[in-house]
């Protein structure tokens, strides 16, 4: 059930040979869609990594009222259908809506039908990944090391960079990879938020959808091959990192 579809898509994409695949991928519209997908996902990963790590840190280290509510809210994006996420963002930032019109008038920023909308949708969807990847590791971190560092005169920043961050790098990376992999393929929210404007706000998934609809099998297969290859390599890498952090954790425990 998992492997046959892969082979089918690979076979179909390579039907006319590698050079034809390359030609399909480098068509201006397709190439732009791929680039847009990759750079919006990259911006999302940077913001998500920083905010996710801060959120995990706040949830683990600080005590404050409504903490359990905040903890529950983190998972909300996983429960909401992505199409509904798109609708929510359009309702808030659409050009005819109050907030959207104000942003356009004051700062000349459009969010809907533009890259910022794509980035917001991706941030919404992938928010839990970094948080949930970092949180358990942070919980098990040995506080005595930080105290020892503090006793030896290390300041807050030194403690953070030298003691807290190193064991968190692997989980942060895993979470970032998962968010990136998830973002590359996202369709439901983006088709609503960004629309289907070639060379402006059309992402790879939306491009594939358009090519399938217009029965351009070569184009659809070519971009699908690229997307599947990226997804495949990212997931393998994420799996490897997860294993690595598990064995490392086990070593430290012994």
């Amino acid at each position, binding site marked *: 059930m998992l492997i046959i579809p892969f082979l089918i898509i690979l076979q179909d994409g390579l039907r006319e040979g590698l050079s034809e695949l390359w030609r399909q991928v480098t068509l201006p519209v397709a190439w732009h869609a791929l680039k847009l997908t990759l750079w919006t996902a990259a911006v999302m990963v940077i913001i998500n990594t920083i905010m996710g790590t801060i959120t995990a840190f*706040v949830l683990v280290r600080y005590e404050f009222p409504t903490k359990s509510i905040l903890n529950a809210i983190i998972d909300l994006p996983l429960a909401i259908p992505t199409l509904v996420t798109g609708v929510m963002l359009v*309702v*808030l930032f659409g050009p005819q809506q109050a907030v959207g019109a104000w942003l356009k008038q004051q700062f000349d920023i459009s969010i809907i039908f533009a890259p910022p909308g794509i980035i917001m949708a991706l941030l919404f969807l992938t928010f839990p990944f970094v948080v949930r990847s970092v949180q358990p590791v942070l919980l098990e971190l040995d506080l005595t090391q930080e105290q020892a560092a503090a006793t030896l005169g290390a300041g807050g920043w030194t403690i953070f960079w030298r003691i807290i961050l190193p064991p968190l790098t692997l989980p942060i990376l895993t979470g970032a990879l998962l968010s990136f992999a998830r973002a*590359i393929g996202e369709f439901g929210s983006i088709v609503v938020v960004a629309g289907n404007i070639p060379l402006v706000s059309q992402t790879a998934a939306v491009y594939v959808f358009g090519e399938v609809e217009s029965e351009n099998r070569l184009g659809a297969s070519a971009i699908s091959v690229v997307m599947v290859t990226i997804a495949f390599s990212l997931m393998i890498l994420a799996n490897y990192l997860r294993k690595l952090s598990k064995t490392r954790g086990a070593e430290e425990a012994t």
Partner: protein
Amino acid sequence: MNNSIVDHTNSSTRIFQFISTLKASWKSWIGIGIVFGYVGILIITPLAALAVSALEKGLGPIVTSFRQSYVLLSFWNTLWIGTIVVVIHAIFGTIVAWVFVRHRFPGRDLINGLVDMPFAISPVVVGYMLLLLFGRNGVLAPLVEATGIKVAFAFPGMILATLFVTLPFMIRELVPVLETFDIRQEYAAATLGASAWQTFWRVTFPALRWGIIYGITLTFARSLGEFGAVLVIGGAAQGKLMTTTLFIYHAIEERQYTAAYSAALVLGLFSLALVIGSDWLRKKENR
């Protein structure tokens, strides 16, 4: 002697922690403020905006839009596709998780990696794969003709697409539960003369129960929201094949915003209630 040392370090740690929280308190409030601001803008505001604009003119328009037979039909379709998917995954997901935890076989690591793939592959590509398999000139087109079961642009295809997309949930919920399950309980039951079936129902199943329930809820919630794969394999289906997500999409295309927003709100709240409800049940059980 040993004990007293441990006690001493524990209490000094606690004092240290207390002092450090006091010292860091203004910093901690900055952190808390940043997180709440971010979550508020990113998650809460859009949710609230949808609710407000769907309810802007009161419940009236929502009720009228739900009175339309095709809106109800779309919800009905979504629910029964979800139900079929859940039943299939509840059975096969349990078996796969079981085989996975209890047996060592070559290629186990590879399959472990593959199970998560549907999570990373674009739903559009999933739908397209199925189209390549079952479509007009598809690889399996002869099989489709021979059996007379239409897959592409029909319910079987939409169910297959949803099955593919929801594959990881059941397995990922059950594998950790099965891994921590003490297999000696089964041996004990067998020694006491229980049959394999009795052992499963009386010993193993109760231990798995919450894993299965949570896996089912996640699978169901995810299948309610599936859109891209169903859109492609359903052929932008109209009429009888409409699911709720497809209805919302078409309503937006046709600028019927009230209908689209209210259906989106209902679908979103329903999925939320499912996931939050099962989470709450599990926490209650753990206590």
